[in-house]
């Protein structure tokens, strides 16, 4: 039978459009977040589990652990609900939030102007970190501008893609930081760009990474905030008071030490002093 495309070309868009309408009708009925949380006594938080101190899996219990997880659990405790953790990837975290699959995002997602316009966020940040690049010790790269026209590995959906494209780098985006770092070790890119809290501990500890160093200054140091859907002002206000409480009591600094996050962020100390002065 001769292979024809025209019936497919006619029917596929209809099939696909029917699916889109189904998706759209369901998404339009999502409740306001705080009401939904209180109604269901459950808050769904998207956390990034890429391995490392912020989010990882405990091999004994196969449960998520890390700073992101501690933050999510404390938010749920203070809201009087139980927490449901949904692992997200940098490539799909925004979609999950927008579709309503998660109510909040605590996913190493720094504030940028574009994201601030697209999504809602809690005004007080809980961390501050910028990007750095891991390069070979004897590499010629010392500044960000040296990355022009060079292959650079990072993760899909990372906030560093835009500034790196601005420097003219040839971006190779992988699903998560784990593959990107392995690609760097395999010499497929001259640098791997991720959060400083991921790269700095790696190049500091030997022996695997002793031939690598991190370049400074940090790229786009930006506050890490908890993200919500746009327009959710009640949720944001409620969470804002929770985050201020974390800073005031020094709970965040303890959590940072507990998870061996190094170097310790100076921003946390600043915010602790600021809110202690304001609150006490």
């Amino acid at each position, binding site marked *: *039978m001769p*292979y024809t495309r025209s*019936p*497919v070309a006619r*029917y*596929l868009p209809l099939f*696909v459009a029917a*699916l*889109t309408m*189904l*998706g759209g009708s*369901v*998404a339009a*009925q999502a409740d306001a977040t705080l009401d939904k949380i209180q109604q269901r006594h459950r808050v769904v938080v998207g956390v990034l*589990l*890429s*391995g*490392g101190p912020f989010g*990882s*899996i405990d*091999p*004994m219990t*196969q449960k998520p652990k890390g700073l992101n997880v501690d933050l999510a659990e404390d938010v749920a405790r203070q809201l009087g609900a139980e927490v449901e953790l949904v*692992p*997200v*990837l940098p*490539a*799909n975290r925004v*979609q*999950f939030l927008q*579709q*309503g*699959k998660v109510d909040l995002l605590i996913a190493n997602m720094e504030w940028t102007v574009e994201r601030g316009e697209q999504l809602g966020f809690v005004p007080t940040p809980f961390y501050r970190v910028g990007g750095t690049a891991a390069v070979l010790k004897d590499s010629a790269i010392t500044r960000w501008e040296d990355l022009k026209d060079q292959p650079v590995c990072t993760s899909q959906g990372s906030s560093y893609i835009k500034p790196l494209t601005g420097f003219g780098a040839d971006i190779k985006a992988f*699903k*998560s*930081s*784990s*593959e990107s*770092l*392995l690609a760097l*070790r395999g010499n497929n890119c001259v640098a791997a760009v991720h959060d400083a809290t991921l790269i700095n501990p*790696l190049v500091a500890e030997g022996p*695997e990474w002793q031939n690598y160093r991190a370049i400074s200054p940090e790229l786009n140091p930006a506050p890490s905030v908890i993200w919500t859907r746009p327009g959710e002002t009640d949720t944001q206000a409620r969470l804002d008071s929770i985050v201020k409480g974390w800073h005031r009591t020094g709970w965040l600094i303890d959590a940072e030490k507990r998870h061996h996050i190094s170097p310790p962020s100076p921003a946390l100390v600043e915010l602790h002093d600021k809110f202690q002065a304001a609150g006490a």
Partner: protein
Amino acid sequence: MATDYPAAASISWPRRHPGKLLLAVIVVLWMAFGAPVNPAFVALLEWSPALASGFGQNIVISLLAIALGSVAGLMIGALSASPFRVARLPARIWVQVFRNAPWLVLIYFTTYVFPFELHIGTTWIAFPDWVKVTMGLALPASANVAEVFRGAMASIPDTQWEASRSLAFTRGQIVRSIILPQCFKRMLPPWMNLYAVITMGTALASLVGVHDLIDTAQIASNTVNRTGFTVLIYFSVLGLFFAWCYPISRLTQRLERRYAFS
């Protein structure tokens, strides 16, 4: 080939495969004495429950996908063999579309386009990611099962149809009582082959964020952060998939040989 089995069966298994036996003994000795000292192997042992539960996720996806795909594929295969053109055409289109689409694109499609929750009445039913991946794999599975079914029906000699028609069976009765039972035996080897291919396709689930074996291996590799461990864990993932799919493939070959002359 069938004639040399009786002669070989009279020699016991250990004598017939001395190389394999020696290899097995060496592996067992190494695991008992050499391995616990090696830090990469210790870490692998520590992570093996997590790996096992991740692989369980892959297996669940594959079983569900082949089940859904087979049910849908049988219906579509039956439609495509119908004497009415209006029934044949949608079935042919379905088969052509889903056999020519890359599985990765179909998985991305079902994961990102479908909603994450279904609102039926007053209840909300969760539609988790792995179910979406299952549906993404069930689509090409159904197209392949339909083709296998059509091929099996076409391989039944025309004489069966003519003889049953001369005995006054209606078309429906012919298909149900005479053709289908013969078809199922012929469909079994390619269907099992399809199951093995679908199990390997579940590896793609890690690219959309499903917490499966490969995702667990990547998190483990990032957490432990040692080259020896990374090498070991990626090759263990390969080994796990091989351990599941190879017996299926051998069984398929045995069934093919058994049914070849029937």
